[in-house]
Structure formats: structure tokens, C-alpha cells
């Protein structure tokens, strides 16, 4: 804030001084506006240093992302290739990425249940959160009266800030017993249904905030024009506003998805964390397939990482496979972000 202000006199003073700069050096004794000159010199130096500082910060971020990727890859690769630091045997890609049997004590490291679990729980959460979030966004931006708009915006901002562990405790102590008691005749309700519901509640505020922004940033001529052409409110929203805001709505959804896919604490508390959930589903016969799927205790990449990583010996196959799982999660998130960036850009063009 303070910096641009002294810049003005500097440039105005600099211009007349520049031609006789040589003369000033020759006649050093003569009084000249050196304080001003010195200050501007310092200023320029400060500018340069600040520039370097910002550059360093930017590079640090890039370095950090690259470093984490390298670290995960180096440790994860130890699961498949005999690297220095390995204290255990290696496994093949087939045994890890194509097997549903996770039993590290017995030497089985199939991570398909975790990948499927992550995809299922985030997919279900998004199925609930995306439509709800976008429609709430439309409501706040285009339908609600101004006082309500203000209240809703503040509520959404508050909800974004609630720590995930709070959602988790809420799910564990209230939702799980309630659902189990009401629908499942006192069987435990832990599984995809409750964790997806909790995740959906967690990401709806993100989606709402961003889609409200998307709708508010649309030129009002779109809305007015379509209504002038005789469309109803609903037609204007459905046929004009939502298509026009689509790239930004997509971004909103993906940011919500990003939050969901990486969430560990809240999910871990309500999902039941059973790595053998696919086996369990095959064995169970007492419920309809859909119900069985929704209420089988399952596990995801994040929940398994958060529970096992601190307790496994570094250099063991088990530990290395967990790092490979972390790398996979990282790459999944990266891919997601890159894909939507490209998608959003295409829509713009």
C-alpha cells in the first residue's frame, strides 16, 4: 500500500536529474537533493529484493510440490523394485493393483478395495452434493431476497470453516446410532451411505459458495434478455444461466471433489475401515445388493493410510505399499485438477 506513493516523486525527480548526472558526480561538494536520490535508490533495491523474495516463495511452492511427489514416488517404488532401504521382499504391480485381497500379515497387498472405496464414497457424495450445491447457488444468487442472500452467504462461509473432525464426531455419535436404529434393526450403519452423507454435507458449502459466485458474475443482460424474450424464470435459469456458468460450476464441483477425495478424519470415523469389504459383500446374502453395498463397513485410500502408516516399519513391503497408495492418491487429485482446467478452458474458447 505504502510503496506506490513515493514512487511518484521518484520518477518525476529522476527525469530532470538524469541528464546532469555526470556533472553531479564531478562536483560532489555542491548541495543537491541527495536524500531524495538515496531514498529512491534504496527503494529500487527494496523493490528488487521484494521481487526476489516473491520469486523465491513461488519457487519454494513448486519445489515443495515436486519434492513431495519425488518423496512419495521414491518410497512407493520400493514396493515394486529392490531399492536401498528395503528390508523386505518386493511385490509385482499385478499383486497390488489387480488384487482385492488386503492381508499384509499374510503377504497379500491388493489395494483394489481402497481404490474402489475412495471412488465409491466420493462418487456418492458428489451425486448428492453437486446438484444440491448448484441449485442452492442459483437460489442464493438469483432468487433469494437480498437479506436472505446475505445470511446464506455468511452461513456457507461458516460451514466451509468447520473442521472435518467435528463432522466425524457428529456422524459417529449421532448419525450412526440413529441410522442403525431406524433402518437396520440395530445393525451397525458404518459404511458408504453414512460416510458419503457426511462428506456431502462437508462439500456442499464449497460448491454453494463457488457456484453462487459463478452465477453472480454472469452479466445481468443474459437473465434480462432471456426474460425479455418471454422465457419463464425456470427456463431462464435452466436454459441460459446454468449453461453459461457451466465452466465455473464444473470448477466448483471439482474443488468439492478434491476436498472429498482427500478427506481422512471424518470418513475414518464412520466408514468402518474394513479392508476386506469386497470379500464381505460377496459372502453376505441377507440383504439386497444395494443395501448391502451401502451398509458394508468399507475402507478408502485415506482411511487406510491414516490408520496404518504410523505403525508400520519403514522399509517393509507394507510401508512401501502404503506410500504407493499415497502416490496414487496424489496422482488422482492432480489428474482431476488438470482435467477440469482443460475442460474449463475448452468451454471458454
Amino acid at each position, binding site marked *: 500500500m505504502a510503496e506506490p506513493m513515493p514512487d511518484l516523486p521518484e520518477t518525476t525527480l529522476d527525469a530532470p536529474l538524469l541528464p546532469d548526472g555526470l556533472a553531479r558526480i564531478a562536483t560532489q561538494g555542491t548541495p543537491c537533493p541527495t536524500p531524495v536520490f538515496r531514498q529512491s535508490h534504496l527503494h529500487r533495491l527494496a523493490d528488487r529484493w521484494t521481487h526476489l523474495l516473491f520469486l523465491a516463495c513461488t519457487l519454494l511452492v513448486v519445489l515443495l510440490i515436486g519434492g513431495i511427489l519425488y518423496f512419495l514416488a521414491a518410497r512407493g517404488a520400493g514396493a515394486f523394485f529392490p531399492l536401498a*532401504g528395503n528390508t523386505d521382499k518386493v511385490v509385482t504391480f499385478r499383486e497390488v493393483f489387480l488384487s482385492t485381497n488386503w492381508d499384509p500379515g499374510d503377504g497379500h497387498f491388493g489395494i483394489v478395495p481402497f481404490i474402489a472405496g475412495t471412488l465409491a464414497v466420493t462418487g456418492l457424495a458428489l451425486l448428492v452434493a453437486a446438484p444440491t450445491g448448484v441449485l442452492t447457488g442459483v437460489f442464493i444468487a438469483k432468487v433469494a431476497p437480498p437479506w436472505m442472500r446475505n445470511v446464506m452467504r455468511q452461513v456457507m462461509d461458516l460451514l466451509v470453516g468447520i473442521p472435518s473432525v467435528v463432522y466425524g464426531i457428529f456422524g459417529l455419535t449421532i448419525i450412526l446410532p440413529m441410522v442403525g436404529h431406524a433402518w437396520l434393526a440395530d445393525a451397525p450403519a458404518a459404511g458408504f451411505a453414512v460416510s458419503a452423507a457426511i462428506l456431502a454435507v462437508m462439500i456442499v458449502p464449497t460448491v454453494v459458495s463457488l457456484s453462487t459466485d459463478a452465477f453472480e458474475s454472469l452479466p445481468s443482460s443474459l437473465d434480462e434478455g432471456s426474460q425479455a424474450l418471454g422465457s419463464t424464470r425456470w427456463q431462464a435459469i435452466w436454459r441460459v444461466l446454468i449453461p453459461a456458468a457451466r465452466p465455473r460450476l464444473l470448477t466448483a464441483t471439482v474443488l468439492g471433489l478434491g476436498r472429498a477425495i482427500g478427506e481422512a478424519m471424518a470418513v475414518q470415523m464412520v466408514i*468402518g475401515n474394513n479392508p476386506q469389504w469386497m470379500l464381505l459383500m460377496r459372502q453376505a446374502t441377507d440383504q439386497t445388493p444395494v443395501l448391502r453395498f451401502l451398509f458394508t463397513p468399507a*475402507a478408502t485410500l485415506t482411511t487406510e493410510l491414516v490408520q496404518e502408516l504410523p505403525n508400520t516399519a519403514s522399509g517393509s513391503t507394507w510401508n512401501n505399499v502404503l506410500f504407493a497408495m499415497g502416490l496414487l492418491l496424489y496422482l488422482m487429485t492432480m489428474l482431476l485438477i488438470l482435467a477440469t482446467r482443460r475442460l474449463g478452458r475448452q468451454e471458454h474458447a
Partner: protein
Amino acid sequence: MKIRSLVLAAVAAFALTPAFAQTVTVMGSTALGPLVKQAADDYMKSHPGVQIAVSGGGSMTGLNQVVSGGCTIGISDVFATPAQDKTGIVNHNLVIEPFTLIANPHVGVSSLTPQQAEDIWTGKITNWNQVGGTNVRIVRINRPTSSGTRAVLQNTVLHGKPFSDNQLIQDASGTVAKMVASTPGAISFIELEFVNLYKGRIRGIAYNGAVCDKQGVGSGKYTLISFGHAYLNPGKTNPQVLKVAQDFLNFILSPQFQGTTVLKAGYMPVSYVKQLKARL
């Protein structure tokens, strides 16, 4: 591998710098951590000039670090692996950790025979009415595969047999207690102190006719116990620091500390098992 060696160098620097100031670093089990921290505070009061820093990380972290020389004392709920034992680390059993089977209060069962308990966890028994309780499905709440508590349960109750796959898994003891309190038909396995913390909401289950308490463990009737371990690495520790660490462990093992603070923290003096062995 470059990053790895950098990290190792940083850890080594951390370990070496305080070594000059007579600092003993303790890492590992989060369950044993509070007790060792309490012991460190007491010890430092009576031994000015000695610094003891206690941090967590989990049992396996403690063992890994003491093997690599990253800390002076590695505390753990489980024995070191055979590979780790070969590196020359030395075990000290600090305390007895009593564990107990717990259940939701509405299951109508307060005692299980060893056979019943084993059959419940292996999946042979699926309803509480098969062991004299109410007609409620049994919900097994276990720990993650890498957990020390799970290893104790498998060694003592299941005699090494595999668990049923039909189970819920939770890591933290507090969460386990909460889940047992709120899930009808739930059974789990937990440190004794949590039974008092969640009094009325969960029920401790007697095993083999013995209740998990001071008398049960002391008389040798109650067998679901494990040791809290402290490992030293004489090969990779400054001799002076090693001497201090050894003295600190002796302080924890002294009858005075074992008889007061250890009992208050929900653990039991390690001498209980020595008596037990003498009787056997």
C-alpha cells in the same frame, strides 16, 4: 534417495545436538507416552542438568528410531521384530498394560470363557444369545492390522488364529469406546483405564472367570496383559547419555514409582508378573 539422506541427516543432527547437553530423547508409543512423560518430569526435578524429551509417533516409529540411533529410548507396546532384535537393541519391560474385553451394556453378558471369547472373534459365534445374552447380533470392533493392541488380542484371546473378516475397525481407543457405547451388540478390546473413563456406557467383560483389576492380574488369574517396552541401543548411543538413560529406566522400575504413578496411570507394576512366574 537424496531427500532421504537429507532427512536422516536432519534427524541425526537433532539427535546429536542435544546429546552434548545430556539430553535423553524418548520416542514411540502414544499409549505409554503420558506415563514416561510423567516419569521424566519427576526424574528431572531430582536430577538437575538432565533433559528428557518425550515425543510420540507410534510404537513402530519408536523401534525404528532406536534402531537407527535417532532416539535414545524407543518405547513400544509390542516386542521388536526379529530383524530389529538382531541390531543389538536391548529390551526393558517397564510396566504391565492390562487389557480387557468390553461390550455394549445391553448385551446381557458379563463374563466369557476363553473358548467363547475366541469363537466370537474368529466368527464362529455371531449372536449374544449363543453365550447366554440377549438376542443381539455381535458387532466386532477391532484395531487396524498394524496395531499393538490387535496383536495382543490375537496372541492372548485368539491364540494366534485369524480374525473374522466381518468386523469394524477403529484406531484410537477413545473412538473405540464411543463406538462400543453407541453400537448395540458391540464387543471390543481396550486398555483397562478406558473402562473407568466410560463407566456405565461400556461394560468390562470378565475373562476366564477373572475380572481385569489389580487382584486379577496380581494373582495371575487374569491373563489378557502385555508389557510396555523400552528399548535402548548401546551400540549407537553416547556412553554418558546411555548411562543417564539407564538410570532413568531404573527410576521408572523403582518400587516407589511403580507403586504410585504407574498404578494411578492405569498400568500395573511389572513385578506382578515376576511374582506370577515365581508361582508357576
